[in-house]
């Protein structure tokens, strides 16, 4: 990793790390980026592997999207990743794309970065002063801008394991399967029967970063998950969002879709035993 950092820094930032390359190579092909040097991280063994460390799942940055679908530890301990994976691109892309790459890029329309927020994950980063961990809530800063400094390497994702009282739901609204979502969301709730003790809600494709919905979360906390609570959370969600107004999807439409999606997900949370 020292060697990779040195290679990156040697060209004054005119470099890019590459792992799966499923977002980077299209960006190069379209001439959106033209770094002089590509530093391939895919041979670094420390970036591989999925292991349970106590109550936390360590997911190496090179873990592929396809593994999020099939890895038993991910399915058991980080089920939101498992639930999101079928919506990420297409099968052949998932065979190469990495979770670390996706979270490093932090595309505001992509699924895995938002799930880091929903799961309350921490990003492990190797940089100038060695390793540090950054909570998801502090990691996403602005459009494609994260806590990663030039030369930093995202090494692993640390996800708190779900317990018997957790329930979760994920879905997105897209025009075609595999397309970027118009709006998407994941919820991880701690529940006692029908009582919501606490919930983390993260949405994507609603702004320049993946966003949490503190208002909707507060509307759920300490309440029975019934029709009134769901309606209150949907209303509160409006203040959590400030979606962009673009020519394809007006802001009002995104707000509407987000409300509808939240309602569906909460309904589903209530139905799962």
């Amino acid at each position: 990793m020292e060697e990779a950092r040195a290679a990156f820094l040697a060209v004054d930032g005119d470099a890019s790390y590459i792992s799966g390359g499923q977002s980077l190579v299209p960006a190069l092909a379209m001439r959106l980026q033209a770094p002089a040097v590509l530093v391939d991280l895919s041979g670094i063994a420390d970036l591989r592997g999925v292991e349970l460390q106590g109550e936390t799942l360590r997911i190496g940055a090179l873990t592929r999207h396809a593994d999020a679908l099939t890895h038993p530890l991910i399915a058991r301990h980080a089920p939101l990743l498992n639930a999101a994976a079928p919506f990420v691109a297409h099968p052949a892309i998932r065979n190469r794309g990495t979770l670390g790459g996706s979270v490093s890029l932090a595309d505001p329309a992509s699924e895995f970065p938002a799930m880091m927020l929903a799961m309350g994950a921490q990003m492990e980063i190797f940089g100038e002063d060695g390793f540090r961990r950054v909570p998801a809530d502090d990691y996403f800063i602005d459009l494609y801008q994260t806590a990663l400094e030039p030369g930093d390497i995202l090494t692993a994702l640390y996800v708190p394991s779900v317990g018997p009282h957790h329930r979760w739901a994920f879905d997105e609204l897209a025009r075609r399967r595999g397309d970027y979502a118009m709006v998407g969301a994941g919820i991880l709730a701690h529940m006692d029967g029908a009582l919501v003790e606490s919930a983390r809600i993260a949405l994507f494709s609603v702004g320049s970063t993946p966003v949490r919905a503190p208002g909707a979360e507060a509307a759920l906390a300490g309440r029975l998950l019934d029709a009134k609570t769901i309606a209150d959370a949907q209303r509160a969600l409006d203040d959590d969002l400030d979606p962009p107004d673009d020519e394809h999807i007006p802001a009002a439409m995104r707000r509407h879709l987000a409300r509808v999606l939240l309602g569906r997900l909460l309904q589903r949370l209530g139905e799962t035993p």
Partner: protein
Amino acid sequence: MSASPMSDFLPVTLTVNGTAVSRMVAPRTTLADFVRTDLQLTGTHTGCEMGACGACLVLMNGEPVHSCLVFAIQADGAAIETVEGLTERGAIEDLQRAFHERNALQCGFCTPGMLVTGHAILEKGGLPDREHIRDALSGNYCRCTGYEAIVDAIERALREREGCA
């Protein structure tokens, strides 16, 4: 004169369709261009060259990947199989026959990628329903057929392999 980092050639050793291959390649040569140009295996097609159309799919260590999104040097040590390899070892004979009989192609440009995805579906086994076949094919574009015949052909090959044709 100092060469720019991009112009230095690097060695790559891999197996392609079962044959060991060693070459010097430019670091930014894609695997798609490498198999088509250096190895003259032109069955792999380059369509969008940005991972959307699926015409360039090859098997990398047994799994379908977009060869336009892999640099040849990233395939160092890998086992690559192209549509030519699958054809020569008879691995997709039934699938190709089903495509032919069902007219599951018109211009044929997307067909190599369709066959690679179809092969992956067949290798997985079982009898996935049409919805699942369509989902598995969602990264393969065909601008001619409307997909119905392609799904039919894959479904037929699946049924034949499961012995319930």
